[in-house]
């Protein structure tokens, strides 16, 4: 009864609360940063866990309303990416040395959350009305891939911070509980690989759906954008494993590509006829 008579914006309220917690986590992360990440800290982890619970609730409410995976407009897509990032962090954060990833993830999550809450992004009608499991699978795999790329960028930020401290002989490098930089590089590499595999499957599914429905693929700006993204991540992976690219360059590459992804994702989605039918 409650569920059917509830406020139609209740899911957004839950998401707003999650964003508030991401904000508190960001402020607390500044405090952790000033303290040098010296002592194991569960508080930020639990803050993000609380935010994750609210975030999941928001997505679940929207999903129940739509009766399918909530990946129909930019609000839903952005919240899905952020959800992927925080879910992956909560898994990694169980390991004490990676718990401080949260301090680097929370500003990213806050930024994405504020962006997603812009009312213009959560429009229905013009937004795609996906039908069939294949389309949902395509969208959710792509967004999970972006989540993995996002967390890889967060690990890259952590790498650059620690690498800078080690290079310049800062005591902070010794006192912080960050994992070894080689480990951070491996984590970022594996997250990019995971994201790349998810993106590949997502693009294959999307291409198959378009082919089945006889929709023109290459007139749509989203398609070359997605292929460009796929090619850039492939180049990053190949340069890392085949040409032994340095950890610093790899980290910068991962952060730069994810920044490109975040900045162009909404524009290409809005311009895409395939995603607005």
């Amino acid at each position, binding site marked *: 009864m409650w569920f059917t008579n509830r406020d139609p914006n209740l899911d957004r309220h839950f998401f707003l609360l999650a964003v508030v917690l991401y904000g508190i986590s960001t402020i607390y992360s500044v405090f952790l940063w000033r303290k040098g990440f010296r002592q194991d800290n569960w508080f930020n982890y639990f803050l993000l866990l609380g935010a994750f619970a609210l975030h999941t609730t928001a997505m679940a409410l929207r999903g129940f309303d739509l009766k399918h995976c909530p990946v129909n407009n930019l609000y839903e897509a952005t919240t899905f990416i952020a959800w992927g990032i925080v879910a992956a962090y909560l898994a990694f954060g169980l390991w004490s040395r990676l718990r401080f990833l949260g301090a680097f993830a929370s500003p990213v999550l806050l930024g994405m959350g504020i962006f997603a809450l812009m009312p213009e992004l959560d429009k229905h009608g013009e937004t795609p009305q996906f039908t069939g499991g294949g389309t949902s699978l395509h969208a959710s795999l792509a967004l999970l891939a972006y989540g993995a790329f996002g967390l890889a960028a967060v690990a890259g930020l952590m790498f650059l911070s620690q690498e800078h401290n*080690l*290079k310049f002989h800062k005591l902070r490098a010794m006192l912080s509980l960050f994992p070894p930089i*080689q480990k951070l590089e491996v984590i970022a590499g594996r997250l990019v690989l995971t994201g790349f595999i998810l993106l590949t499957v997502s693009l294959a599914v999307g291409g198959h759906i378009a082919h089945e429905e006889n929709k023109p693929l290459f007139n749509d700006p989203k398609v070359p954008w997605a292929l460009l993204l796929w090619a850039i991540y492939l180049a990053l992976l190949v340069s890392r494993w085949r040409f032994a690219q340095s950890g610093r360059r790899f980290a910068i590459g991962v952060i730069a590509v994810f920044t490109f992804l975040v900045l162009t994702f909404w524009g290409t989605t809005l311009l895409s006829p395939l995603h607005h039918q």
Partner: protein
Amino acid sequence: MIVVLGLSHHSSPVELRERFAFAEARIPAVLQLMREEGLVDEAVILSTCNRVEIYASTSLDSTKAFAELKEFLVTCHDYRDPLTDELYTLNEPQSIHHLFKVACGLDSMVLGETEILGQLKKAYDIALQHRHTGPRLNKAFQRAFNVAKHVRTETSIQRGSISVGSVAVELAEKIFSSLDGRHVMVIGAGDTSEKTARALMSRGAKSIVVANRSIERAQALAAEFGGRAVNFDDWSGEFGNVDIVISSTAAPHHILNRTKLEPLMKLRKNRPLLLVDIAVPRDIDPEVNLMPNVYLYNIDDLQAIAEDYLKQRKEEIARCEAIIVDKAKPLLGHGNGPGAMGGVVPAPCSVIRGSGSNGSA
């Protein structure tokens, strides 16, 4: 009443400490004798390179107890020279506080070190096994071990490394996923480089290559660690495999610079490389630190880190002491807790000779 009588690195030189040291095998008999002579009811003897201390529970008046214990100690070691401030005596509550400080490494030469806790546990075990401890010392020592654990987890007193060798190990652990399987190269087999290599090998480094102008010295050091010796002129040929380089040659100029290292890094497929330059004048051009995946630390960098750690440990002393005073209260009968030792009235520290200085730092 628990009392402490002893001498440590704070109060006496090593020549005196070694005169008063007890061989481990002799301790049970000494404890037995102390009890048979009625000096103490319970006792533990702690004898390390930095201290010789008797922790005792006695029903004697403290002045008399200290005089007799001192006489016993002097006689036991057949020591006939005059003593001034070398021996210190502590009564409750200082004796309990001192025991806790020793357990926490606050009274150690290397502030916050943990080896002393193991030595204290061993000293207690010897006394316990030979039934020279009772309810008072059992409670005091058990609590001391708990306090040491509490202080270790709640403060930063044992945080960080304060020697060049251990700082190098810690640095390596910040760069490499694991030290297991890492290859170490020592260029110039000096004393500090040997200690650093030893620290790295003890933490799991896989192999060591030693390059030295004297090949005999290189072979001797390599043999000690089960490694290989190479001619000094051939060290760069090994660079493809090594992860950590410790350099301490007597060369008057840089033996490694950016021009030389760049092609070597390509051989290493850009794996991270930790360069520890402990030579003066320096062996490695500081400019190599600008290269990707190269981390260069010289002797001043390592010492600065060690000093910063020590400074941080010193800043923690006040916190540790507050914890110690708090944790000692139940033992001293402040309150009615289960650990109270029968409402013992704290008495001032008594002195045998001289000032009876407290051994704590």
